[in-house]
C-alpha cells in the first residue's frame, strides 16, 4: 500500500500554494481555511471576483478553474494549488474587450454591474461547452447567477450576441 501523503498542514499553519491566474503564476502562503475568492481578491488583487451572497447562491464570484466554472466562495485556495484560473481581468487583450464583454456592452446587459463579472465568466463556460445555445439553454446555463436589476432579458440577449460574435470571429474559448 502506498502511503505518500502529498500534503499535510495543521490548523495554525500556513501552506505555500502556486496558482496560475490569467496566464501568470503566483506563489503565496495561505491558511488552509482561506477561500479562493479571498485569495484572488485580497492576496492577488483580482477585484473583479465579487463577493455577493457569500452562501453559494448568487454566482458573483464565478471564475473558470481548470476549464470549468466554479463559485470561488465555495472552493478553498489550497484546492486551487497548481490550478489554472481565469478571471474577468484575463479576458480583454491589448486594451480590446473580449467579444463576450462587447456583447454585454452593446446589449446593455447590466445596470448596477455587480453581478456582471460572474455573469460574463459563466457565459464564457456556457459558450465554451455549447457555442450556439437556445434561449432556454442560456437561461438554464445562467441559473446559478443572480441579477437583482435587469430582469435578465438584456443578459440573455447579450449571450446570444456573444455567441454570434464568436462564431463570426471563428473564435474558440
Amino acid at each position, binding site marked *: 500500500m502506498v502511503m*505518500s501523503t502529498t500534503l499535510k498542514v495543521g490548523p495554525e499553519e500556513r501552506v505555500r500554494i502556486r496558482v496560475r491566474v490569467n496566464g501568470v503564476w503566483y506563489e503565496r502562503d495561505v491558511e*488552509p*481555511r482561506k477561500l479562493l475568492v479571498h485569495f484572488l481578491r485580497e492576496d492577488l488583487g483580482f477585484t473583479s471576483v465579487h463577493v455577493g451572497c457569500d*452562501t453559494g447562491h448568487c454566482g458573483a464570484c464565478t471564475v473558470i478553474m481548470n476549464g470549468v*466554472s466554479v463559485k470561488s466562495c465555495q472552493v478553498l485556495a489550497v484546492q486551487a494549488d497548481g490550478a489554472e484560473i481565469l478571471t474577468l481581468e484575463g479576458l480583454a487583450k491589448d486594451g480590446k474587450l473580449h467579444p463576450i464583454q462587447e456583447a454585454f456592452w452593446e446589449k446593455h446587459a447590466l445596470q448596477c454591474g455587480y453581478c456582471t463579472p460572474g455573469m460574463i465568466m459563466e457565459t464564457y463556460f456556457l459558450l465554451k*461547452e455549447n457555442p450556439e445555445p437556445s434561449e432556454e439553454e442560456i437561461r438554464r446555463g445562467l441559473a446559478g447567477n443572480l441579477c437583482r436589476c435587469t430582469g435578465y432579458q438584456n443578459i440573455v440577449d447579450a449571450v446570444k450576441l456573444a455567441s454570434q460574435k464568436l462564431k463570426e470571429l471563428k473564435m474558440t474559448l
Partner: protein
Amino acid sequence: MYPPKFGYVRVSSLEEAVNILNSDENAKVLAGGQSLMPLLKLRLIKPSYLVDINRVPNLSYINIERDRIRIGALARHHQFEINKELWSIYPAIPETAMQIGDPQVRNLGTMAGSLAHADPAADWPATLIAFRASITALGPSGERVIPIDDFFTGPFSTALGKGEVIKEIVISRVEGNVKSAYVKLERKAGDFAVVGVAVMLKLGGDGSIEDASIGITAAGPKPFRAREAEKALIGRKPTSDVIEDAAEKAMRESNPISDIRGSSDYKRYMVKVITKRAINKALSR
C-alpha cells in the same frame, strides 16, 4: 463569512484517507465541497482536518458496462448531465444531475459526496433507489457493499461507519424495455426539492409493467422506496386508473415535515402529483 480554522491533508489514495478518518473522528472528507463549504462557513461544523481526496487518481469514472454501471467517488454531477449514452439508456440519471443546484455547483459536486452528506431533500437518492444501486464503501477492514435501501439511516446520517468512505456506486443494468424518469418539484431554480420522484419501469411485450421501482426524496426523514406504489404497478397495464392508484399509495407511504418549502399536507399531496408525472414521463419515453 470565513470558515473556522481546520487543518488540511491532501491524500493520494483512498486508503490513506481511511487511515486518517479512522484515527481522527473529527476529520472530514472534502470531495466536491458544495455542501461542505456552506456548512463550514455557517460554522455548523468544525472539523479538525479536511481530507482532500480530489487528487486521488482514477476516481472520476462513469463506466457503462454490459451488466452494470460503475461510478467512481469523484464523478461530478456535470459528467452525468452530458453523458449521451446515459441519456439513451437510463435518462433518469442525467435528468437528475441537470436538476441539482446550478452549473457551477454541478461542475464540482459529486454523486458520492451527495450520498455521504445525505440531505433528506437531495436528488440523487431518489434515482439511485429507483435503480436499486449499491454503494461500495472502503473502511479500515476493507471493502463492503451496502444496498442503497440500507444506506440512509436518517437526516444527514448514513450506514457509513468510522473511517469508511464511498469508493464506488454500482447500478445493475436491467435487461429489456426499461423506461425511467426523475421529476422534481422546486420552488425556484437551483433549490432543493419540495418533492422528487424517480421511477424505473420495465415493460413486457404486451405493454404491461413487469417490474417497477420508485424512489422518493424530500418526503420523509430519509429518502425511501415506495413499495406499495411499486406493487400497485407490477403485473398491470399502465392505465390512468392504475397510475392514479400507485400515486395514491406513494402519497400514503410518505411522511414529509412542514418547513419553508411547504406544509406537510401540501407535500404529501405533491408526492401524489409528482409520482403520477414521473410515471407518465417515463412511459412517454
